């Protein structure tokens, strides 16, 4: 048989298939994607009709029927609650400092990535336009400015954006020997921004409100939960049964109950857990404690996933080098585990960002609470404006968490976590 193969006519190769991303003409595209079969055509028509109707209703409401006056007049309250208006310059200053330090940090990070790519230690990042990446935030700020309707605010926002871009460019020029101080710098900047608001005769954070409080609770909650979560995760994987049982118990109990019960615990129980003479902490502090108790259990599970992803060979190698268990964990295991944990942590942060709305139930003046309370103002009472205020609040939550989840997906792709 084998000999006869030579005599056969060469089999013509099949036509190379057209590459799938060849541009289809609009007609072809519609045939393929909208009217592929009878059922497809019916579905297309039904969906198109429904979507058109829904879009018409929504757009008509947003641009014609809605009475946005309630949001326009209360924008400052929605953003900062009952923060003293005379001290608002502190918030603006803090925003400038934050923009500078975060922009600088992002620039330095981009530089570090470029160096890693150049040295062949990392895959190049997927190309995407910077403007596209921050589009949700730009939309958010644009809408806020539209509601604010003041050139002063517009000027300040433009100045903040320019500061951010400027420091970003500066960050991209960090000399290599200063690279390791960048995280410290960003942290210091954040702290200074915080201090500008609270210190030097400023406003204690127990008086914060609105969207500012949302962000404070989310950032503060995740920052405090992170170290506790790491300890809990390490404890859950400890070789000591007592430690393991206690940590597992903590994690599973807090993961088994709704956040609202933990907030109730903070609101109604903490007073009973303190010895006599100790003042009951402020409601915001109690809520923060509740968020930390709850979130650290979830962070622990995220970190545990990261710990499990570190190959056993790494630990064995560290032991073979004679590292102590503590140093093995600190120098070998944690750095590798925490790198793969970042997207999970961002996910947890997004959950927390949305969950801060639950303080509505215990009456803290957070964004959602204010949105609901506005409809009880004398000028707006009983006019059914709740849809407007809730839409505004959902828009803020939505853009925030949509932007973060997209960034986290990007990060995940870049770390190549999905492909392992």
């Amino acid at each position, binding site marked *: 048989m084998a000999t006869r193969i030579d005599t056969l006519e060469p089999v013509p190769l099949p036509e190379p298939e057209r590459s799938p991303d060849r541009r289809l003409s609009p007609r072809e595209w519609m045939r393929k994607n909208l009217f592929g079969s009878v059922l497809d055509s019916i579905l297309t028509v039904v969906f198109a009709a429904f979507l058109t109707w829904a879009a018409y209703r929504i757009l008509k409401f947003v641009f014609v029927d809605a009475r946005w006056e309630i949001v326009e007049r209360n924008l400052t309250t929605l953003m900062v609650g009952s923060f003293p208006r005379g001290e608002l310059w502190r918030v603006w200053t803090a925003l400038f400092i934050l923009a500078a330090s975060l922009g600088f940090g992002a620039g330095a990070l981009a530089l570090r990535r470029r160096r890693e790519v150049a040295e062949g230690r990392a895959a190049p990042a997927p190309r995407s336009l910077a403007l596209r990446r921050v589009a949700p935030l730009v939309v958010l700020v644009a809408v806020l400015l539209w509601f604010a309707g003041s050139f002063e605010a517009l000027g300040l926002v433009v100045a903040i954006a320019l500061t951010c871009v400027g420091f970003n460019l500066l960050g991209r020029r960090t000399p290599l020997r200063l690279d390791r101080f960048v995280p410290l710098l960003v942290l210091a900047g954040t702290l200074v921004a915080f201090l500008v608001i609270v210190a030097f005769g400023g406003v204690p954070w127990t008086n914060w409100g609105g969207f500012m409080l949302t962000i404070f609770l989310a950032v503060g909650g995740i920052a405090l939960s992170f170290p506790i979560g790491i300890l809990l995760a390490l404890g859950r994987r400890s070789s000591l049964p*007592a430690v393991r049982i206690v940590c597992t118990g903590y994690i599973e109990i807090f993961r*088994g*109950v709704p956040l609202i019960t933990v907030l109730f615990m903070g609101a109604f*129980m903490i007073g009973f857990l303190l010895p*006599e003479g100790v003042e009951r902490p402020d409601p915001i502090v109690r809520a923060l404690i509740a968020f930390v108790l709850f979130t650290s259990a979830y962070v622990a599970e995220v970190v545990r996933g990261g710990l499990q992803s570190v190959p056993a060979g790494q630990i064995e190698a560290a032991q073979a080098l004679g590292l102590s268990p503590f140093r093995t964990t600190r120098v070998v295991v944690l750095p590798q585990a925490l790198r793969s944990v970042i997207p999970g942590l961002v996910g947890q942060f997004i959950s927390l960002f949305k*969950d801060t*709305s639950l303080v509505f139930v215990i009456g803290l003046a957070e964004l*959602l609470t204010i949105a*609901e309370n506005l409809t009880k103002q004398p000028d707006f009472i009983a006019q059914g404006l709740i849809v407007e205020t809730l839409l505004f609040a959902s828009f803020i939550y939505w853009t925030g968490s949509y932007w973060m989840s997209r960034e986290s997906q990007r990060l995940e792709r870049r770390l190549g976590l999905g492909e392992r």
Partner: protein
Amino acid sequence: MLQAVFLTAVVAFLLYLVDTVVWNLERLGIPTGFDYLDQPAGFAIPDSDFHSSQSLWDALKVGIANTVKVSVLGIVLATVLGVLIGVARLSTNWLVRRSAALYVETFRNIPVLVIILFWYLGVVIRLPPIGEAVDVPGLGIVSNRGIVVPWFDKVGGATAFGAIAAVGLLAAAAVWIWRTRRYDRTGEPHRRVLWAGGVLLGILAVGFFATGAPWTVETPERGERSTTGGFRLSPEYVALLIALALYTASHIAEIVRGSILAVPRGQSEAANAVGLSGFQRMWHVVLPQAFRISVPPVSNQYLNLMKNSSLGVAISYYEITKITRVSISQQAPAVQAILLLMVLYLAFSLLIALVTNVVNRRLTLKGRR
């Protein structure tokens, strides 16, 4: 040694907490045990027969029933909607695919509490009052006092019918087993759902008429100020149910989509090769395997839905959280009430976890543990 120190520290800390709590409670003259549960509640629960002289424990039982009511139906609705949207996200039709993606991205990124408040304050309680209620013949009456749906009305002979129904169930089970055995022996299509369902329906139908039609379906009637007959779903229940179902469906849709994508491509290609139609390929080859992958994450979503039902407290739906909240403001000791509430939720969590674990174990392929 280290363990002993750690354990001593933890135990000492817990003892200290308990001691402080007891000491604080005694100092303030608040009872320390759980006897408070036997005392009259002092509040009434709307949409139930509960009255304020019944004990707090009875109130909690009503709350448990309400939590179960909204969780179970919510889970069913969220699953159906979630699977539909998850499959739609992979549709070949561009418009369908994008609409499903739009739905998922919208609902996943808004806090569930906002969705609940929106449905309650923005939609359900702004429905027309009863005088102008929307009456959909045969389906129900929609007004700002809730939705009234047709419901069964007991006439008599229900016990006898119950007995016949039980017999029917047994017979159906027997037919099911018989068809399965026959399929194992001969390889002939078992069609056990058809067979068992047919037997059950037949026996139920015969029983229904033999006992003189013990149930009639009663359609609600609209009056000037109230409705008569039918089964009323309170506005709070409707809002919470819809919001929880919509929110959880967006998460389930993502899981379903991921699970379908996780089924190896070779499976669909093989299904194509043996000449199955698109629907057959999905129904017999892809979905069963995707289902297996999706059980653990979906069960997590069921747990979340049950836990999120605690947000009924924000719109005064009387589930256990709301009842605990009210009882605390009615002088029930906060520490015990909240601990009891947490224990109840842990029990619910455990129950759902147990059920889904059993399902998961039955579905796991042998040798793939």
